[in-house]
Every structure is written in structure tokens, then in C-alpha cells.
């Protein structure tokens, strides 16, 4: 079993599109995949489950992988979280800068 901690980086959180991406990727692996947030654990291969986690930007999640290809699964899925589900771009960075008082 592998456990990994990740943080949601994309602004809109695990809404429909990222949830679909995550479930699609997870379903490619044979291993079981679970996501835990604040003590609630859901099946990471269920889009309804993932969406109902209400994981917004900044949420910390514990990912749990169990099965024959758990290492590959963990690597791929953590990378997807790291990439911010393809939503990280100039806009997001600018917002952070604004937060630090560089607002225009």
C-alpha cells in the first residue's frame, strides 16, 4: 500500500472537469485508489464520490493506492495533482502576486 499527501493547486478545486480527468486516469490502473479528506474516505474511481468531496483550492488530501500497479498509479496521479489539472496558467500566478500586495 502506498500513501501520498497532496494539495489542490488549481483554483476551482476538484470540480467536474478535473474530477473526470482524475477518475479516468485512476481507472487505467488495476490498483484500488482512495481519497481521504478530513477523515472521510471515498473511492477515487468514482466521479460522484470525488465531486462530493468538495475539495477546493488549498485542500489537503491523502491518497491511498493498493494493488499490483500501485507504484505506477501513485506516480501518475500525484503528477496530475501537481500539474493543477492543466488549469495552472498566468492567471493563477497573477492572483497570487496580487495577494502579496502587487496588485495593479
Amino acid at each position, binding site marked *: 500500500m502506498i500513501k501520498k499527501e497532496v494539495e489542490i493547486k488549481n*483554483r*476551482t*478545486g476538484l*470540480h*467536474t*472537469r478535473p474530477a*473526470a480527468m482524475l*477518475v479516468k486516469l485512476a*481507472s487505467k490502473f488495476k490498483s484500488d485508489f482512495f481519497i481521504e479528506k478530513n477523515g472521510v474516505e471515498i*473511492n477515487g*474511481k*468514482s*466521479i*460522484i*464520490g470525488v*465531486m*462530493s*468531496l*468538495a475539495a*477546493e*483550492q488549498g485542500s489537503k488530501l491523502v491518497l491511498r493506492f493498493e494493488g499490483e500497479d500501485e507504484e505506477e498509479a501513485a506516480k501518475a496521479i500525484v503528477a496530475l495533482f501537481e500539474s493543477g489539472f492543466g*488549469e495552472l*496558467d*498566468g*492567471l493563477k*500566478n*497573477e*492572483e497570487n502576486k*496580487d495577494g502579496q500586495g502587487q*496588485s*495593479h
Partner: protein
Amino acid sequence: MVKGKVIEGIPASPGIAIGIALKYEKLKPKVVKKELKEEEVSGEIERFLMAIERSKSELRKILTLAVEKLGSKGAEIFEAQILMLDDKTIINKIIERIKEEKLNAEFIIQDEIEKYIKFMQDSGDDYLKERAHDLEDLKNRVIRNIQQQKWLSRFDTSRIVVAENLTPADTILFSRNQVLGYATDLGGMTSHTAILARALKIPAVVGLKEATKSIKTGDLVILDGYKGILIINPEQDVVEEYQNKIKRIAEFERKLEDFKFVPAVTIDGRKITILANIEFPEEVNEALESGAEGVGLFRTEYIISNGTIPEEDEQFEEYLKVAEKVYPYKVVIRTFDVGGDKIFRDYHREENPFLGWRGIRIGLDKPEILLSQLRAILRASVKKNVWVMFPMVSSIDEVREAKKYIDMAKAQLKEKNIPFDENIKVGVMIETPSSALMAKEIAREVDFFSIGTNDLVQYTLAVDRGNETVAKIFQEFHPAVLRLIQFVVESAQRAKIPVSVCGEMAADPFATVLLVGFGLDELSVAPKMIPEIKRIIKTIKFKDAKRISKRALVFKTQDEVKNFLMKELKGIIPEIEI
């Protein structure tokens, strides 16, 4: 039953319908717990799986319809529902439970899905709360399919649908049937039903407040989408009057066909360019087929979805699509005109969003958003047929600052050797009283003006037209509004820059004459209004229009203005009274 009771609402989509009412209520399917015998289990699972498949195919149909009518962004909600139906984990869980607990599928579905709905509802997150509605709808859809119940949205004969409110899905679904019209208790001009009904060309009256209380399924009703009224169980002579009206309108529309592709020139030779307002790239074809000589307003807000703004490349592709289709005509692309709550939905809330952080104000505060959009627009301008326009300008500082960002975006593209139109025309929307009053000065800073009458009226009269309670005092012919428009046109003419009107007012036959008389060069209207506007312009003399609009400025109330126009135009536009 009161014979011929009239209920007043808001005219949301033009047209007249006479027909039998169908009251639409969203009933929740009844779910009773039922124990199964061992031999019934496999049949129950089969019923469940078939219901999933049936629901999926229904949703795919809705999705196709929605993409057609709304574009792919507007159809996302249905895509999400289809994805949820593919949730193997939950489907397997439900199958397992049916096997183990030996209970009927409806009950298990209800029990299992309700947990997630509750999760979402309790999350405190607006987005998820909306998704909880979607999941609830989806659950009800599957359960109804298990129960093999007839869908309320299916009816064989033509009907006028009367409902408290309609979701986008309802509105789209009904349009598969012979729906004659929509009447709803709630909603304003900009509600989903209103926008969709116009796109679907189905007459609609919204904001009727008590329609569902006063109407029973089977009542005969007349829905007048021009006046915004509903007549319940009308007398025979009223029905006949309306039947004649429908005939006259049909004849009139046939005649309009001839005006589609002719230039709009007054009898005495003044040419007015007629452009189209569009919301989605998909609408360009309709615009061109209706005789538009370009796009006078391309609203870009549709791109923003669930608070996410696509990156520059994706935006560029969307804008380029429109620019290429419109070529050799021009397209005026307006930068995002939304409230902050639409982009920063996770945390941004305002008491009074229409007077708040919206339009160019957001762009100037969040330059990365503005710059990436400007770069995308510039890149789409390679064929030199793209103009760019800033919304919600209220002071000259904003104009100057926005222009700096254009220069900056240009420099950034140059650095990367990306081609664009160096001389792209830069203009502003005149839609606040302050920008109208400062038009003379602003005209020296920009290449063109476009008067957005919807907002100009709203801000000048302090009337929210989406608010049913006050929508009636939203007066486009208010003397204050006319004087502002006249002043803006005069200021543009002095600075020798083109000026257009892109609000809904431009599509009002009375207003057409006024606006031409004021000296506007271009009118930008909804595609389907184009033939009518061209016909009117070809019927009048510029000389007369000038005289009429000059006289119209002296009146003190909207009623006086309208009465005057009615009298003057009766001779000029004989068919005006439909």
C-alpha cells in the same frame, strides 16, 4: 373560471401562440421500499442497468440539442451528468446492495445517491450545491426510467408549456416536442428560459408571477410574446383577432426575406451598415445568412466556464474561428463583461454587482486576465478584420489605461514574432451615463464608439431590467436616454470616428428611425432582426428621420416620445402596427 383573464409578464421571446396549456410540474418519483424474492434479484439488476442506459441515451440527446443551441460551453452541465452515469464504482455498489439486501433498485439508488447529495449540499460551496441539483435530477431521471414512467416532457400534440420556472434542460427538452410557447412565473429578460426561447425561436413570456396558479392543463391560452401577456380561456373574438395577427405576421416575415441581402440605404441615399450581435461562434452562420455585414458585438463571456478562464491559445482559437468566418467583414470583439463573482466565484461576493467590480474594472485590476485576452484577440486579427472594444468604461483614465495594455500585449507578441494587425481599431462601449457625458473627450482617445443601450438605459434610469418588479420602468425611449445617445453621436461625428448602437434598442422599429436620424453609422442587432431593420431603413428618407429625431428630443416623457413616433411613422412605415 374567469373568461379571458389577462396576466401580464415580461416579453421574453417574440411571437404569438394560441393553444392548449400544459402545466409542467417537476414531481419527484415516489420510492417505496420493497423486498425482493431470490428469483427476482437478477431481473431487478437488469431493470436498473437498462434504466442507466436509457437515461444515458436521453442525456446524449439533450447534450446534442444543447450543443447545437448553446455551444459546447453551455452544454457542460449535461456532459457532467453523463459522466456521473458512467460511475462504475457507484453502479457496482448499487448492484451489490440489490443482491445482498434483496431490496428494489429504486430504494437502493435513492438511499445510495442521497448520501452524496447531502455531502454536496452540506459543503457550503455554491458550485457543489448546484452540482447537488444535477445529481438529484439525475437520480430522479434514473428512478423514473426504472419505473418506466411516461416523461412529462413528452407530449404528442402541440402545447403551451406553463411552469413556475424552467431549467435549461427543461427548455431544451421541451423544444423536441411541438411546443408552441413558454410561460413561466419567474424569470426576467436574461433568464435561461428567455435566452433559450429566443435562440429556439419559440414565443415566451416570463415573470408572470401567478401563471401556474391561474391556469389548468387543458385551458386554452393565448401567449403574446410581443406584449408579454397571457390570456386564459379567451373569448372567441379575441382568438380570431390573434389568429389574424399570426397570419399577418407570417405574411410579413415572408416579405422580409427579400430584404436580407440588400444594403440598407434610405430613399435619399444614406447607407447604414447592419451588423449582428452574437454570443457564441456558432451564431456567425445565422448572422451571415440573415444578411449581416459583419459582427458588431461578439460577447466573449461564454468562454468563462465555472469560474475558469481558458488560456490564451484556447481563446485565440475561438476568436479566430469567428474572424475567419466573418471575413471580409469585420468582427468587434468585446473584452469580458462580467461581474467579479463569475470569475472569482470561490470568494468574490458583492452586494450590488451591477455597480461593482465588473467589465473593464476587473481587467485593469487583474492585468493578466486582460493581457491574455488582448493577445488572443490581437492574434486573431491577422486578416485585419478584428476590432477590439472595452465594456463598462466610466472614466477617461480607464480608457487610457486599457490602451496601455493594448500596447503591452502588442509588444509581448512582437517579442515572440507572432503576427497581428498593428493598426487594430480600439473602441469603447458607451453604456454608463458618465462615459456618455464625457463622449467628446473620450472620442479623441479611441477609434470608435459602440453605444450599449441596454446598460445605458439601466444605469441612466437606475432600473435593473432583470428585476421583474421594476422591469416595466425600463424605458428605452426615456428623454434622458435619447438626449445622451444624441450627444454621444454628435461627439463621435465631431471627432470623425464611427459610432454604432449594439443594444436591443437598435432592433426596435421605432428606435431604428430615431437612431438613423441621430446620425448613427451602424446598427448591430440580433441576427433575426436584420431583414426587418433593413426594410425599415429602405422605407424612410434620411431627411425625415433627422427631422423626427430632432423633434423627439423636446418631449418630456417616454409616452410623449412614443405617441409622437407612432403618429409620425404611421405614414412612413405602414406595417408598423403588428
